[in-house]
């Protein structure tokens, strides 16, 4: 087993990997940019190396600096988390060339799956169903126009090097095509360093369902069932669950079998995920393979009892998978809500800032993977995730009941806006409760608006008025204790996470 693992990431996933290291008795090495000197992952790690200024491109995405940090601290393995270098074959190769173990899949598999166009071809050849689209990559508006003519609008334009909901845009009709092509191309160039893109027929109102796979270096490959990820905003997941309320036992078996076949086709090892689109008739199509740990891995962990990050580390160390397909069982139901510093009322734009007070939910069935602490800053430079709140229940209804309770217990205040109230809204939506939704759900259903206490009776009204008076006077009751220090009070009054409930 490794002695010291460098985590080439930040935020909650870096803390998650540090926890796995600690469970295994392995030392952890954090890296940090100027913006993250006081971040939780730096505090929690055994070692910490500064790797550059705040923008990721100048710090977390500098290959030489990360490798240098590993060498200086004597790290014998590197875990990339998700995002950043996690699907960068060049980095994976550089790590291995430096004599350090790469905790991830073979670079060739990253490469073949990372080129979305090649991946489509490869999967089709392996007998994995794919969505109709362009046979290869495109570069100009007119090429897109001719493919669109063939397969018909709406179409998705996707960056060949994109993934994870980034670098893809929908085109409904010919009028919007020029502007979208320009944006995708620019974004692909700046984000992925590769301006090529391709086109797929847009499957209207699909489900997004994915299969987790695990494989060791000896060719043992298993699937760990599905995750339902259809609740998305801005083409990015915000709520995931496992199992999927849509997937039947037969469909689950077929998807699992196809996912294992897909992984084997690229001689995969480590943890990976095959993403599928599913239509109303339970047909499913290969979307892409994520050759890394997923944000939403906790729901699979809660339902199966496995520790996916620990298993990743064990596989990288050359160990054989300690279980076979028939050892893995689903028990109960798990749901994850991604708690972001973002403003649902303003199109879910990031709304990061400093966290003043913070109280996390807990109790039966609750897990909360956070990357922050009271007083921490959610920096503007990176993904504005605060935590991943997950609830487990013996069935879906209980998982939802518990999630609703946990969302009520979650208190966060400071100079930021959160999507907590948005999650509460979903957890009370009849279609969500019925399991009746697809990737268009939020776009169709969510209308931000005032969410004040509509049924405020007179007692609640009296309490609210008194609270408001206390707020205005800057002093509450005495409780026999000295009041909090004024300086601290002032800042805490500024804004509160719960206020995102009210928007007008």
């Amino acid at each position, binding site marked *: 087993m490794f002695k010291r693992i460098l985590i080439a990431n930040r935020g909650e996933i870096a803390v998650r990997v540090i926890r796995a290291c600690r469970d295994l008795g392995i030392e952890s090495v954090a890296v940090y940019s100027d913006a993250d000197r006081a971040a939780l992952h730096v505090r929690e790690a055994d070692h910490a190396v500064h790797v550059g200024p705040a923008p990721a491109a100048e710090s977390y995405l500098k290959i030489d600096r990360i490798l240098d940090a590993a060498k200086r601290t004597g790290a014998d393995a590197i875990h990339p988390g998700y995002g950043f270098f996690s699907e960068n074959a060049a980095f994976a190769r550089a790590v291995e060339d430096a004599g350090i173990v790469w905790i991830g899949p073979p670079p060739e598999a990253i490469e073949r799956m990372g080129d979305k166009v090649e991946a489509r071809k490869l999967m089709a050849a392996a007998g994995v169903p794919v969505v109709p689209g362009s046979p290869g990559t495109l570069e100009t508006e007119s090429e897109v126009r001719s493919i669109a003519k063939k397969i018909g609008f709406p179409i998705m334009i996707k960056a060949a090097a994109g993934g994870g909901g980034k670098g893809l845009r929908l085109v409904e009709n010919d009028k919007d095509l020029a*502007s979208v092509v320009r*944006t995708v191309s620019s974004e692909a160039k700046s984000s992925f360093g590769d301006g090529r893109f391709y086109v797929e027929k847009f499957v209207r109102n699909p489900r997004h369902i994915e299969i987790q796979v695990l494989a060791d270096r000896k060719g043992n490959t298993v699937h760990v069932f599905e995750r339902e990820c259809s609740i998305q905003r801005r083409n990015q997941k915000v709520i995931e669950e496992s199992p999927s309320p849509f997937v039947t036992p037969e469909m689950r078996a077929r998807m699992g079998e196809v996912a294992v076949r897909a992984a084997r086709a690229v001689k995969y090892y480590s943890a990976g995920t095959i993403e599928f689109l599913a239509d109303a008739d339970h047909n499913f199509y290969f979307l892409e393979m994520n050759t890394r740990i997923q944000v939403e891995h906790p729901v699979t962990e809660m339902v199966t009892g496995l520790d996916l990050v620990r298993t990743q580390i064990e596989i990288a160390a050359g160990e054989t998978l300690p279980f076979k397909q028939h050892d893995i069982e689903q028990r109960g139901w798990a749901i994850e809500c991604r708690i972001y510093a973002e403003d649902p009322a303003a199109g879910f734009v990031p709304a990061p800032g400093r966290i003043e007070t913070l109280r996390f939910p807990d109790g039966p069935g609750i897990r909360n993977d956070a990357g922050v602490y009271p007083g921490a800053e959610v920096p503007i430079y990176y993904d504005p995730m605060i935590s991943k709140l997950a609830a487990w229940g013996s069935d879906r209804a209980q998982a939802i009941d518990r999630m609703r309770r946990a969302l009520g217990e979650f208190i966060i205040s400071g100079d930021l806006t959160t999507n907590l109230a948005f999650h509460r809204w979903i957890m009370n939506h009849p279609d969500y409760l019925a399991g009746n939704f697809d990737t268009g759900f939020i776009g169709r259903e969510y209308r931000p608006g005032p969410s004040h206490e509509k049924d405020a009776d*007179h*007692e*609640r009204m009296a309490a*609210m008025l008194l*609270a*408001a008076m206390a707020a205005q006077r800057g002093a509450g009751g005495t*409780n026999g204790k000295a009041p909090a220090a004024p300086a601290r009070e002032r800042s*805490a009054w500024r804004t509160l996470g719960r206020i995102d409930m009210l928007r007008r």
Partner: protein
Amino acid sequence: MRYVATIEGAEHEVEVEELSADTYAIRFGDQSFEADLRRVGPASVSIIVNNRSFDFDLAREGDEIVVASRTGATRLTLVDASRHAMRARRAPREVSGRVEIKAAMPGRVVNVLVAAGDEVTADQGVIIVEAMKMENELKSPKAGKVTEVKVVAGQTVEKGELLLVIE
């Protein structure tokens, strides 16, 4: 103390009287309540009224106070009754033909698609701003002429910062 509370546009006269260190009488309309209030955090209070327990987080936003609980939040203003009468109403602001394009969030300018002096059409993309790797093309809300360009590509901008002006 007498207050005028404005909740969701409706005005209420409220009278609050301190009965002891922790208890208060609250009267509004024909309702009268006794409440027990304790500070339980820097911006949190626990209030018990008629054996009902309320746990509120409080925030000030400008003139407004936000009272938030586990189930929702209410935004209100509270004005001293004696000052309420004198309170000047703000004159509605003039809407001019000048349109300011501002940053909706902190981020980085990826590309400025127009220059000062350019004529633009409604919905024409004028600037691309990136925040957290998401690029957003901001569009001109009206046809007009670009009179000022305040930023250059690569520049970091704050939320609300003026990017360019169209007249």
